[in-house]
């Protein structure tokens, strides 16, 4: 799995600079607006998807499938990349919002909602990507991202969302995310193992 992650990072650094720049802008905007603070974390998943898209278009995904690496390692690496990168950004933003002056503080409830949204997002799109490829599952990804952005808008409303809303979402979304991942990961593994290049 580590070799796949290292390869994807290398591809990202060479091919994904525009998206990385966009992410940096969204993260900077997130210092001042709650919506972008949340949206930027979800957008980070796009970085990983873009790497997968580049690999598909260039043929490197096919090349990797023939190298000494298990297909399960390729799938697992992509889950780790998506969740890991976004989780790191969530933690970094939380710490910065609580340390730096002039930045709206993030509540722990917001963090929980965001992590839950992230897990739901990844658990829905990954089976489509492993089954159909990134290009053919773009519609799904856009719809799910729009839905997650709507959640971000609710939670990130200026002045803070009602505690009851955050509390409700803070229970539902993480639970749905965990259940989603428990179903999504084996499904994605099964799809990718059967995929033909």
């Amino acid at each position, binding site marked *: 799995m*580590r*070799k796949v992650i*290292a*390869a994807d990072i*290398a*591809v990202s650094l*060479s*091919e994904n600079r525009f998206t990385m720049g966009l992410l940096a802008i969204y993260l900077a905007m997130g210092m001042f607006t709650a919506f972008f603070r949340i949206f930027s974390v979800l957008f980070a998943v796009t970085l990983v998807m873009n790497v997968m898209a*580049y*690999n598909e278009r*260039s*043929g*490197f995904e*096919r*090349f*990797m*499938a*023939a*190298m*000494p*690496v*298990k297909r399960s390692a390729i799938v697992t690496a992509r889950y780790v990349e998506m969740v890991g990168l976004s989780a790191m950004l969530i933690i970094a933003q939380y710490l910065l919002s609580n340390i730096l002056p002039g930045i709206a503080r993030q509540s722990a409830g917001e963090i929980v909602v965001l992590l839950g949204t992230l897990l739901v997002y990844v658990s829905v799109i990954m089976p489509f990507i492993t089954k159909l490829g990134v290009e053919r599952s773009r519609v799904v990804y856009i719809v799910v991202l729009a839905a997650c952005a709507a959640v971000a808008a609710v939670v990130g409303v200026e002045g803070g969302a009602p505690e009851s809303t955050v509390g409700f979402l803070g229970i539902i979304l993480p639970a749905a995310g965990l259940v989603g991942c428990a179903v999504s990961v084996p499904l994605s593994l099964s799809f990718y193992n*059967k995929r*033909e*290049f």
Partner: protein
Amino acid sequence: MDALEIKGLRKEYPGFCLDGLDLELPRGCIMGLIGENGAGKSTAIKSVLRLIRPDAGEIQVFGRPVSESTADDVGFVLDEGCFPAKMSCEKLGQIMKRFYRAWDAAGYRELLRRFGLPEGKSFSELSRGMRMKLSLAVAMSHGARLLVLDEATAGLDVVARDELLDILLDYISDGERSILISSHIVSDLEKICDYICFIHRGRRLFLDEKDVLLNKYCVVHCSRAELERIPREDVIGCRTSEYGAEALMERGRAPRGLITERAGLEDIIVYHIRGEEK
């Protein structure tokens, strides 16, 4: 122990079926996999490389079933460029080092130098021939004992193809490495292959040593009336025109008195196909 052994390989697609392919590639040899477009060559090769799952059959590399663990022993070159566009040759080597246990970084740099590939150049800046050489450099830099090339010479000019063939001959000069190369450019394979496996419409029509094949058959030139008198079972394939007829036959069965000439590999294949289609 053969370098590659395929038994009963079967893969079905809508409108096509690779039906029960058997193939043995001895160590230290080059085998050419020949067939027209859509014959099943790439299907066979993709099965060896684990890119597709066969419906039936066994594939063994150096006596072990194909898996990610045998992939260290197999270097491959696919027909299309398959590296990220903006990645440099040097960076590619760093990535490959993580995947292959026996990655030889110094050997890779030496191959880049020998093939005239600047380390800092990105994949998109390379010509078709240079991309093929880069793919070959990667395939040859991790101690692979079996090299699999799928239409590696397609799209290359005559000089580039000739260079590639020289590289391959050099690669197996130690007597331990083997090469399976698929192509529909028969002349390339005739130059370097020890064995020829001909696939037509998903079936293996023959697999034999190249020299045996070339000595086995001849092309008979005769009139149409003379062709009619030859027993049908002796004629593998034929072509007739208003000027006369040509037929592929085994040397020992060619009638006396008729003009015969040595059959090249292309003749053998074309007439086999003609015979099959009749």
